């Protein structure tokens, strides 16, 4: 009898220990995913500052930093609530869906080890959408107008898209069998097409286009920094992709859509599509900027199926993304769109390709009670994400333009934003290079 009681107590203690181990491991996993995702922003910072002309370098950096800073509190105020309240369509005001900023779980709470860590991971995804948008509009957007648009994108539009397209009960999954493991739709397509809507109203940089419509290349002032920034961004992506997987503790990982998945699968496919993207960009352009942008485009081209693809397929899709991105950028330029860093081409076009490619190559996967994965669902989802991004981006920037809150004055653009808006100088000792190199006598 005493032995039975002891055994029972031991089993109960083990079960309690296993429960705590699972809880703490979940927190730790998403904590480090969030930390890694900060590296995405270090990458974007270097990338956008490098892509700017010297006279705008710090203004571009400030813009990027401020987008991040305003994203966090606004995501606390209303972004997380939108995600939890909207999987069926628009926010459900009739039920307590969680995520309201005054909720007892939206702060330190010993009965809840999960809300903060998931909020943080999604806040970093939100900041990523703002950073995607940020690069496209450098060198001529007003800082205040940009911040308003970034908040709209990061704390309202993309997170609404995530509720529809990256949620276990999102309507795109439940009605159409949509699948998008790596958020090519709700993060990359939404942010890119939002940027496109803004670019149409913002207009090109002075000097980008000639009277006959031909385009001039506005050269980045620091290509090595831009290229390095893109590689740093990729490092951060391991946090992003880690955040795409659900830790279940005592059973197999699952995707947000509920299918079983392994980190091993994601590891195979991420490395393969990243490599393919670089190769695709290199074949198409020989340009290191497009090689590294190709790495990103390659990831987005395979993102939807990183959990299920045969790795060589991910590699080939990656090459496709790396080829599509610079071609799409040239095409947009021919249409008179000045996207300073190719954000619409890389995130929007490669993301769309990726979402639709999943329907072509990965149809028929079971989705429990919901439709199996299929091409029609992917096309419907792609169209939804495109419109969800474009319409608010175009509409909000149109309103800002009406109130003169969108674009800096022409004289400021010519003088340089740093000179007018920033109290410090980026390169006080100069940073000129005549490209000739310096020879010193050998010793």
């Amino acid at each position, binding site marked *: 009898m005493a032995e039975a009681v002891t055994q029972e107590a031991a089993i109960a203690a083990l079960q309690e220990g296993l429960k705590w181990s699972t809880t703490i491991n979940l927190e730790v996993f998403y904590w480090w995913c969030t930390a890694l995702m900060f590296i995405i922003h270090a990458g974007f910072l270097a990338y956008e500052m490098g892509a700017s002309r010297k006279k705008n370098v710090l203004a571009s950096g400030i813009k990027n930093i*401020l987008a991040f800073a*305003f994203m966090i*509190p*606004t995501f606390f*105020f209303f972004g997380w609530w939108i995600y939890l309240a909207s999987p069926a369509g628009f926010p459900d005001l009739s039920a307590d869906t969680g995520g309201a*900023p*005054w909720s*007892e*779980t939206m*702060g*330190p*709470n*010993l*009965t*809840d080890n999960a809300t903060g860590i998931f909020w943080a991971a999604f806040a970093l995804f939100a900041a990523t959408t703002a950073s995607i948008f940020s690069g496209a509009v450098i060198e001529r957007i*007003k*800082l*205040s*107008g940009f*911040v*308003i648009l970034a908040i709209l994108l990061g704390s309202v539009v993309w997170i609404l898209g995530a509720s529809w397209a990256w949620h276990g009960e999102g309507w795109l999954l439940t009605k159409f069998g949509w699948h998008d493991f790596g958020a090519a739709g709700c993060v990359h397509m939404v942010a890119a097409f939002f940027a496109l809507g803004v670019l149409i109203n913002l207009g090109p940089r002075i000097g980008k286009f000639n009277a006959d419509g031909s385009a001039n290349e506005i050269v980045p002032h620091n290509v090595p920094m831009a290229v390095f920034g893109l590689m740093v961004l990729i490092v951060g992506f391991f946090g992003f992709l880690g955040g795409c997987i659900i830790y279940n503790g005592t059973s197999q990982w699952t995707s947000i859509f509920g299918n079983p998945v392994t980190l091993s699968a994601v590891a195979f496919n991420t490395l393969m599509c990243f490599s393919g993207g670089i190769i695709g960009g290199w074949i198409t352009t020989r340009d290191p900027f497009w090689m590294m942008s190709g790495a990103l485009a390659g990831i987005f081209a395979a993102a939807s199926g990183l959990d299920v693809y045969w790795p060589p397929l991910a590699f080939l899709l990656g090459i496709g993304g790396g080829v599509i991105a610079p071609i799409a950028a040239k095409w947009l330029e021919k249409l008179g769109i000045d996207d300073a860093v190719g954000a619409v081409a890389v995130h929007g076009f490669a993301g769309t390709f990726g979402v639709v490619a999943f329907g072509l190559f990965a149809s028929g996967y079971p989705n429990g009670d919901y439709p199996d994965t299929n091409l029609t669902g992917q096309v419907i989802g792609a169209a939804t994400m495109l419109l969800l991004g474009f319409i608010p981006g175009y509409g909000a920037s149109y309103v800002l333009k009406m109130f003169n*809150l969108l674009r*800096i*004055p022409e*004289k*400021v653009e010519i*003088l340089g934003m740093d*000179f*007018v*808006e920033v109290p410090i100088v980026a390169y006080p000792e100069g940073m000129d290079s005549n490209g000739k190199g310096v020879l010193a006598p050998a010793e």
Partner: protein
Amino acid sequence: MGSPIETWDGAAAYFTGAGGSSPGILLAISVIVCFAAIAYGALTEEKAYKDHL
């Protein structure tokens, strides 16, 4: 404001002021400050432009 708990045993929400009115007040202030900062930024931006035009 301050601690909402007297013991850690059985504590749930333990953030400063939990269960009282201060979190709501601070939330409202932080919303106002956040959007006031954007407005302030817009004003200083316009002033910088005017100074150089």
